[in-house]
């Protein structure tokens, strides 16, 4: 009887939160053109591994209001660019016992074009690393500097700058070979229900995208826009921070930013958006 009560409560909450109005094709005519020049596709053919669970894959940009979408169409209006600009200074800043800057080894930051599109990626030791891991490895091993926190300001600045170099390039994470076992674990996590509300990523972003969850238009949960400038935080939000927020909202105990679980989930979620161009730095609500 107790179990039934709990079940009913969960059903009632979900029923109240998810309205039945579906907008299967959000903003069908919206086109993401930045500065009137750079066309960025916001829809693509779904990757084969999805087995047809999504008819087409959509950038989260398509689910936002006119005002929010417009902020991303102009690099001045996009407040995330402040972070990338600070990142340019950090790129040149010599630090650590080696007194080296990013630029000393990597030259112009344009050499990072394509990096964001393939993250996360298995490193030479067979570990799955996110961009933050690669950056911190440079800092501690090559520069002799302190590692940056996952959500720290300097990490946001530099990941924003590096991501921007791949803007418009399709997400191209590797999911076979050494990456396959991590991808499988990430996939399992995507379909695992978490928290008191017993919600998986798929419950919202696969089964109910396009519907309203209270006043929010549920997207397909694509990660190609990250790092994103979130109006709510008035700051750059890294993907793992968003994962943590989602799991917390299921009233569950979340994993930490940078954890093995979140890196695997990052790989799987990225692979659902294979073919969608990197938007980083996007603007979301």
């Amino acid at each position, binding site marked *: 009887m107790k179990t039934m009560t709990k079940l009913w409560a969960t059903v*009632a909450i979900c029923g109240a*939160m998810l309205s039945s109005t579906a907008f299967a094709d959000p903003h069908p005519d919206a086109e993401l053109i930045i500065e009137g020049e750079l066309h960025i596709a916001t829809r693509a053919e779904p990757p084969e591994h999805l087995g047809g669970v999504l008819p087409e894959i959509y950038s989260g940009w398509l689910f936002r209001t006119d005002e929010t979408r417009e902020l991303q169409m102009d690099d001045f209006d996009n407040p995330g660019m402040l972070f990338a600009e600070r990142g340019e200074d950090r790129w040149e800043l010599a630090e650590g016992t080696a007194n080296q800057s990013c630029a000393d080894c990597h030259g112009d930051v344009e050499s990072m074009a394509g990096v964001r599109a393939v993250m996360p990626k298995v490193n030479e030791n067979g570990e799955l690393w996110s961009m933050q891991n690669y950056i911190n490895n440079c800092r501690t091993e090559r520069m002799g500097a302190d590692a940056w926190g996952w959500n720290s300001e300097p990490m946001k600045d530099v990941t924003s700058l590096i991501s921007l170099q791949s803007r418009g390039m399709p997400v191209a994470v590797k999911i076979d070979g050494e990456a396959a076992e991590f991808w499988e674990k990430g996939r399992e996590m995507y379909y695992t229900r978490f928290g008191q509300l017993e919600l998986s990523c798929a419950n919202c972003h696969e089964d109910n995208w396009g519907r309203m969850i*209270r*006043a929010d238009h549920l997207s397909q949960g694509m990660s190609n826009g990250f790092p994103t400038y979130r109006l709510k935080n008035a700051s750059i939000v890294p993907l793992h921070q968003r994962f943590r927020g989602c799991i917390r909202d299921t009233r569950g105990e979340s994993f930490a930013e940078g954890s093995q679980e979140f890196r695997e989930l990052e790989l799987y979620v990225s692979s659902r958006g294979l073919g969608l161009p990197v938007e980083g730095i996007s603007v979301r609500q």
Partner: protein
Amino acid sequence: MLTRRDTMALGLGVAAVAMVPGVASASAVDDAISAFTGGASVTDGGVTISAPEIAENGNTVPIAVDAPGATEILLLAAGNPTPGVAKFGFGEGAATSRAATRIRLGGTQDVVAIAKMSDGSFARGAVEVKVTIGGCGG
């Protein structure tokens, strides 16, 4: 069929989303207006406020005010803990009496603009902005 505990939890969720505590009293809005006008009468119209009808997030709401002929515009958010938002002074070098910015709104409320015209008269405009609460508060 919500249990009491679930109802409470949902309520807490809503409270956690609210950005700032409290709401300005009507007198705080009136006080701010009289401080600006010196008690002079204010006529409706002549001030345009452009804002989204529904803001996706109250933390960053794009807003523009325009009052041709104004030397100053006072912008107030009637439902915030304190109503003051900004006071725009247009100098000799300004081509228009228009300015746009981004503001914080603690919830659905009226945004009010009072313009001081070059002849010393005052005009008022107001617009309601609905502020939505996100999916799960996340």
